[in-house]
């Protein structure tokens, strides 16, 4: 089998501006939704209590809500979790609350109106933990960004590292934008997925840049856009096959992983799709506009001090 039968280099760079405008628009849209709707943060970040119940038959959410309402709980959310038998209850953080007993208290409240439930999981997170998690998440993101920029600058050139990180941060913002727009729950595992995506889609840029460097060294007389076109074209089959393989794994998680892994897999899916796009069609034009050229890779022979005309030294 051979999916990719490309005769000539595809002139990606001719449409560079279009791609970047599309990117910029998606990016701005994502930022807009992030600000207008905000992320639906999970209990891990906001603090609060999460209770998962399982009923032997389909659960009556109205009754659960009523029972908890009469028991004096306010601002709560009750919803199905995965199946109609599983119920997820979220309770906000309260100052005067005996956190240690909340699981039992809820079960007691439910015993009259909606009996038959078994307690599957209780999660309580205090306010200080949530704040710390958010801070640590931001720090982790920062460390990844710095680490990648430094590594790529060291291995390639600063132009490459800057464009790679811009292209991939734009992926991260777009994932966050999706989560904000659909109000999907943003949990710690989604954060892990986002950071993994950042590392993963930088891969893409690295593979393309590797080719760019190689082509610059090997082929003379090509203009920079031509070099980039060639590099992208010759790696495009690998890019798509790799991503398809990874996506198969992620899809399997999406289908079989259950509710807990669902949003994790979803974040990865968005990340993978936009990862291809951004690292190929956004990062490369950025490199071009930042002024990459052949001279940066083909180093002139260094003159050694004291060498004679033949360049020999003893």
């Amino acid at each position, binding site marked *: *089998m051979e999916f990719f*039968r490309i005769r000539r280099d595809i002139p990606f760079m001719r449409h560079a501006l279009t791609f970047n405008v599309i990117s910029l628009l998606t990016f701005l849209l994502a930022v807009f939704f992030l600000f207008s709707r905000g992320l639906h943060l999970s209990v891990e970040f906001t603090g609060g209590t999460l209770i998962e119940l399982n009923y032997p038959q389909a659960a009556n959410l109205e009754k659960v809500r009523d029972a908890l309402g009469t028991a004096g709980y306010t601002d709560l959310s009750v919803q199905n979790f995965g199946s109609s038998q599983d119920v997820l209850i979220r309770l906000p953080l309260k100052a005067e609350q005996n956190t240690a007993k909340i699981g039992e208290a809820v079960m007691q409240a439910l015993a009259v109106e909606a009996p038959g439930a078994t307690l599957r999981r209780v999660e309580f997170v205090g306010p200080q933990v949530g704040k710390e998690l958010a801070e640590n*998440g931001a720090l*982790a993101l920062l460390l990844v960004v710095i680490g990648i920029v430094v590594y790529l600058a060291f291995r390639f050139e600063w132009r490459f590292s800057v464009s790679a990180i811009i292209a991939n941060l734009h992926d991260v913002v777009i994932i966050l934008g999706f989560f904000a727009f659909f109000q999907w729950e943003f949990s710690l595992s989604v954060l892990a997925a986002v950071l993994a995506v950042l590392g993963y889609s930088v*891969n893409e840029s690295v593979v393309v840049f590797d080719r760019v460097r190689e082509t610059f060294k090997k082929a003379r007389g090509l203009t920079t856009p031509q070099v980039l076109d060639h590099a992208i074209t*010759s790696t495009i089959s690998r890019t798509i096959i790799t991503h398809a393989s990874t996506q198969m794994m992620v*899809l399997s998680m999406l289908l079989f992983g259950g509710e*807990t892994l669902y949003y994790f897999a979803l974040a990865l899916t968005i990340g993978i799709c936009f990862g291809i796009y951004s690292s190929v069609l956004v990062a490369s034009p950025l490199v071009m506009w930042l002024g990459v050229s052949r001279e940066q890779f083909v180093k002139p022979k260094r003159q050694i001090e004291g060498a004679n005309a033949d360049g020999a030294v003893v």
Partner: protein
Amino acid sequence: MNRYPLWKYVTVVLALLFGLVYTLPNFFGESPAVQVSSAKATLKIDDKTRERVALALQTGGITDSGIFLDSNGVKVRLPTTDAQLQAKDLLERQFNPDPADPQYVVALNLLSSSPRWLTSLHALPMYLGLDLRGGVHFLLQVDMRGALTKRLDAISGDLRSLLRDKAVRHAGITREGEHIVIRFRDGETRNKARVVLEDNQSDLLLADQGEGDDLKLIATLKPEAIKRIQEFAIKQNTTTLHNRINELGVAEPVIAQQGADRIVVQLPGVQDTAKAKDILGRTATLEIRMVDDTPGALEAAQAGQTPFGSELYVERGALPLLVKKQVVLTGDRLTDAQPGFDNQTHEPAVHLTLDSAGARIFKDVTRDNVGKRMAIVLVEKGKGEVITAPVIRAEIGGGRVQISGRMSTMEANDTALLLRAGSLAAPMEIIEERTIGPSLGAENIRKGFLSTMWGFAAIAVFMIAYYVLFGLVSVIALASNLLFLVALLSLLQATLTLPGIAAIALALGMAIDANVLINERIREELRNGSTPQAAIHTGYERAFGTILDSNITTLIAGIALLIFGSGPVRGFAVVHCLGILTSLFSAVVVSRALINLIYGRRRKVKSLAIGQVWKPAGAGSATAR
């Protein structure tokens, strides 16, 4: 050119063998067991205990399938869960005849059923996290400010007696926030006090304040003293938690310090969360203070006029009691508390043992206060409760104290337990809690397993269809990657969580990238007219640089997660990082070894089974222009 030296093949074979051996225990499953361990530091578990267990089971008519002794205690493997419960009850009765004072922890456990030769190689099944096996997880925050103010209160008490001993007349000692303020009427006394304090209290920083006849000496704790107090507080609390959890009979509790002021408690398999929380939640601290028996003061306090420096309490039994705020002794001076009987009256009593500093203070206080009452106050969440308020009959030296009078045997037991377990150095509160039911854990394992399996199957089918023999080799390399990863996780006994399983799946999905890179590169070389052998050689060589770069960037992200992540993120990060490392080896070395084995020995290779390689008409490429 495509031949590996023998040592490389040997390395690959050894690595695979290692992977196989350490992955193996995960397939044997677990069998029910009962574990007997010591509930006291002084009690050692040795071969004698093992014999005792064996004898007890024999007389009880329970057949076991093996008794072992390890660092955790004696473990008995049993054929069925019914036998497990019977054995637990039997051993509980045998080893803890007095349930009020347990000497041993008898707990239900699960033991790996892998053969003994594997266990002796330290090949154990992966250590499953709470979300996979069910149980309770708590994160407790130690109130360091509370620990410091408590210490400062104790120090102000010390200062009072110190200045009195040295006959320095002060006009009052109070604690204001995190300072101790000592007032003086004239500068000379203040200077004298300063000398005394500097000689005796090396933990304090002293500063002058005030003028005229309202002179003050402000004492604050030195930073290193603060650090020491905080370290001590968290250590003491961890020990206390250990003691309390021993009462629960949990097989493998995890009680560990996290950061400067937090303690993680994980109780796998515990389902009675209410009891667990109840025992952990008893964030009690113990204080010994004097009862204020100034005539009329109690009546005044009951009328709402509590005298300065005293607090109104209700003794157990509803008798009102006025207790001085000044703390004589705190729970951390207490080394032991045991229920027993008074030697002369044969009344139930509690025997306390104090450490040497505590014994000295206690001697002084009792000498000065014969005939007066002292109160033992248990402070829970900022609220105090007087457990008992005995009368001091004589000076008590030597640090051995007996509390008796108006107590039943049961009360003596309770008090002893509270005193023993209740001495937390600083208050704590639960700031994070997770309870996971066992059925949910099993379901999580199944889901994680299914996702990995189907994802792997899909990738395998696709790779073989697309790259034929090279695809098969890639799939074998991927399978060996899975093998290495599981083996490493088993060997390191890193905690596997559901996000960890997701990371295994993702590691496989990402690891295939390396093989795709290699295979695509070989096809490209072939397209450009290289001979098959040269194509393999250059393909692997050229791809390696790219693979390294891309894996390092992914590793950077993984390490950042490892540093800053906690809980589920950390579980993900550990596996993610390990997965990247193993994939480098398997995708490059293992797959190359296989390819070399297949093609390297042949003299003439006409074509490679790498699927169809399409060549554009008028071959050549852009670079050849």
